[in-house]
């Protein structure tokens, strides 16, 4: 009963570095004892609630180097410090990574999306993070950097558990890399089952696919809030990728498969039973929606 979401009573040093280089040297020096502050929509709340304490808070909010979206080679590179609104409103994101746009629009409200950043949503590693589910479906990769260099990790391998990732204490997530689709057209959707609009997910699903000369290919399906980390539904993807067109038999098979791929729990938002029951329905609904868009020529 000592925690509250009103006042940040903890004592800490707020450091305002002027460059990424400075951030890296601060991380090298303080590592575990430091927290990186971007939008603060998770970090500051957690600090107020006493769920997290850090001696040093490194404020990266104003670092232009980490903001913006660029086309580099075959990738779209999103700076980790870009606000959720900035990403969700980007024309290229909307055209080529529609599930990500959907997911971002489902997060809280405009004010939070203005403050919150895409990198924060990733590194915070909440099993319920909406943008993360879409990023996993879009098979994003994450670029991490420390003083010695950079490395790139697949989004499917980045998350280890609630609040846990492969990021080392001296590393910062600098960019999110999205491979631009090569097919004729692309479709994708995200759906969150919540208690009310803008809620934290009871469960969430992202589905993406591309249309090529041979048909609808590259189906990717990911879920959130149904396991400690985002889940890639490989078996569902296989069903979709090996069976065309999408008909009633396949959707029934999808429904049956989903419940076996997830390990949901009971919590304040929902029950394991409900999550299992409704995950299959939601995944097949969304796959049908994507399929129909290709069929109807919308995508």
């Amino acid at each position, binding site marked *: 009963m000592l925690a509250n979401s009103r006042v940040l009573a903890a004592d800490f040093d707020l450091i305002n570095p002027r460059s990424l280089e400075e951030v890296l040297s601060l991380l090298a020096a303080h590592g575990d004892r430091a927290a990186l502050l971007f939008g603060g929509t998770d970090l500051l709340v957690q600090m107020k609630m006493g769920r997290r304490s850090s001696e040093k808070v490194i404020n990266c909010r104003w670092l232009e180097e980490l903001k913006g979206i660029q086309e580099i080679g075959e990738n779209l590179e999103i700076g980790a410090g870009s606000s959720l609104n900035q990403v969700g409103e980007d024309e290229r994101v909307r055209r080529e990574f529609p599930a990500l746009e959907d997911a971002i629009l489902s997060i809280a409200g405009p004010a939070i999306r203005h403050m919150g950043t895409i990198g924060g949503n990733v590194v915070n590693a909440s099993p319920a993070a909406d943008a993360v589910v879409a990023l996993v479906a879009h098979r994003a990769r994450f670029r991490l950097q420390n003083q010695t260099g950079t490395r790139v990790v697949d989004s499917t391998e980045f998350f280890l558990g609630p609040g846990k990732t492969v990021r080392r204490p001296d590393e910062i997530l600098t960019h999110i890399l999205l491979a631009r689709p090569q097919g004729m057209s692309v479709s994708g959707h995200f759906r969150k089952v919540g208690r009310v609009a803008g809620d934290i997910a009871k469960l969430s699903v992202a589905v993406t696919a591309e249309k090529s000369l041979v048909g609808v290919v590259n189906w990717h399906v990911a879920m959130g809030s149904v396991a400690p980390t985002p889940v890639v539904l490989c078996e569902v993807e296989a069903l979709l990728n090996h069976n065309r067109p999408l008909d009633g038999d396949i959707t029934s098979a999808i429904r049956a498969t989903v419940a076996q791929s997830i390990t949901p729990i009971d919590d*304040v938002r929902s029950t394991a039973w409900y999550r299992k029951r409704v995950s299959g329905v939601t995944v097949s609904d969304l796959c049908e929606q994507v399929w129909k868009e290709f069929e109807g020529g919308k995508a």
Partner: protein
Amino acid sequence: MPEVGRNLPRKDGVAKISGKEPYSHDIHLPNMLYAAVYRSPLAHVRIRYVDTSGAQALGAICLTPQEVPDVIYNERIVSIPTKTYKDRRVLPTVARHVGEAIVGVAAETEELAIRALSSLRIDFEPLPSVLNAEEALKPESPKLYDRIWLGEKPIEMTGNIACERHITEGDPEAGFREADFVVERRYTTPRKYHGQMETKAAVCQPLPNGGINVWATVQSVHNVRQVLGQIYGIPLSKVNVKKLSIGGSFGSSIQMNSIIPICVGLALKSGRPVKLISPREDDMYDHSHYQTEMVLKVGVKQDGTFTAAKMNVIADIGAHHIQADALLGVMAGWLASLYKWKNFQFDGQAVYTNKVPGCALQGFGNPLVNFAVEQHMDIIAEMLGRDPVDLRLQNYIGEGDVFWGQGPSIKSIIESCGVEEILREGSTRIGWNQRREPHEKSGRYRRGIGVARGFHTSGTAGPKPGDVIDFSSATIKVNEDGTVDILTPVIDHGGGTGEAIVKIVADTLHVPYTMVELSDVDARTTGYDVATHATRGVYCGGGAAAHVAEEVRTQILAMAGRILDEEPSGLALDLTAERGTHVYVQSDPNRFVSLKDIAKTAQIKSWGTMAATGSYRQSSAPPCFMGHFVEVEVDTETGEVRVVRAILLSDAGTVVNPDLLAGQLIGAFARGIGFALQEHTQTLPSGTLNHGGWLTDYRMGTSCDVPPPDAMDVYFAHTYESTGPFGAKGVAEAALSSVWSAVANAIYNAVGVRVYDLPITPEVLLEALSAPQLIEA
């Protein structure tokens, strides 16, 4: 053109939307300390010793249970003293729920105060706790209290029953024997949070004369003043409580908020002004709505007439008795006043548990009773093969009948009633005739239409004094330029009570709305008003203002008579575009004098100020009726319910603020959807709340969760309540009364599954849909 009934800019509108309207959170005084509260981590615990040395070392001032006056009180003094149960102190020596305040701490900054909380060392003796009413009723269960008080009379407690009420009219057993059918069901409603926008705050300034000034979140400046005077032994003339805007309340501040006396104690101890703001989490551990179990039994004849009704209620009131006795009385009253049961029995028990204290929430038991009765009506209609609307029209209590919504001591004869208009208009607008039965529907998404009707009282007054105090006061004066000041103690929760009072006074004095203002007032500058509760703001507060304005009007005519050299009885007050507000000679309308000239003349000639102060008690507590026609869509694969369309129909008598009334109906409907489908607070075995006090985990609906504006149709019945100011009644709490039942009835109509326990979450509904034995044939 009268001002009553017009849509006019709010008096506080610009200040509120520009952030300039001061709330208690905004009060800053020089040399002020900031406070925080240490709250019990355990459900039931004796506080042996509080070591404050660590906190003091940080420069904090602490207030412990040993340092507060040993006064047992009830923070709600709406009921008369002999009907007021008392069981709490400012800070307890035994904490009876997780989150009960134990120690107050004040420091130079709020951050420092919160850090000082962590430095307190408290020696606890854990006591066994009981966390549900059923358990609490068992003789072997731990007892919360050895002794409580009813007025000045001690009550030695043998168990956990805080109070009970048994009310019978007629011969219910004979009634049930007469019935062709007897229908009995058990309904439950959960604990839930008020969710008012403003969390509670208090600022207390100790005065050199031993008095205090208080700025706080209150629904009544006078009651808070009196409780503080009583606790701290300060004469009321030295206790002042300021009237401020309040960011909603939904009943959670009818009583004095628990942080106010803590703030006062800290201010008196430190000798400095102290500000104490409840974080949202503290607020969620401070009050809750009552959890109830209701077993309703109704006897009915084949022709649809009722022969008897019997309701058993167990209310889990949590750790303190704030108003449980009144709750049981009104629950009986809501039941008795809905339909002509002929014979009637109510048995209610209010039970202490080691949970967050329960208190009134918009409707004070009314939506709970309605949830049972209005579902029962549909069940009976289906059983008899009757149309649910017709069955209601056959049996409703209306014009000429007795209404005793606020309990058996407050009875009125209904003289205005819009029930029939509401039900007929609603049926037409929703397309009731096209409504199909559940078994005629198929497919994954199924739509259903439901109806429910409800009401609320307008105030708690009546022809004779009851268990509840009800009168209001006003001071009205005419300024020297003909403008008018109103000093009213009535708190506006945001629904426009203030504007309504301005319009009522403006029309009584024939002064334009723009020339009448509400003064900044406090308990010292106003007469008594019991509280803005029981949907009484316009009817009772406005009624008192109208009464006092009549006296001012008499004075205006008298002054004008001196100027015009006429008897006041031959004069009339009027407002025209050319003359403005003026008094004219009835036999010679060309002879007139403007109100401005009357006021100025009265000043120059030293005749005095035209002003009056008075109190007034309404002679009735008329019901304001409500009807909800709702269409829902159920996704049978996920259990999700979407409310797609709604007709909201009210009978508020004369509509004083049309836009604001529409807003109130829509707002209450939106909240009601949340209560029906989503909101509930569960207490875990540890005594903590399932959402931990975090608003992110106690989700309330958003504007996206209600039907779009063009799918919500608002309708006002055409009635006139002759006892009310300009024909007005209340509406506020009525607006929520029948939402849950209408939604539940619509869900049944969609999928043929009836859910008796709120909230009807997708989890609950999907499970019910998966269990065919639950479906009623």
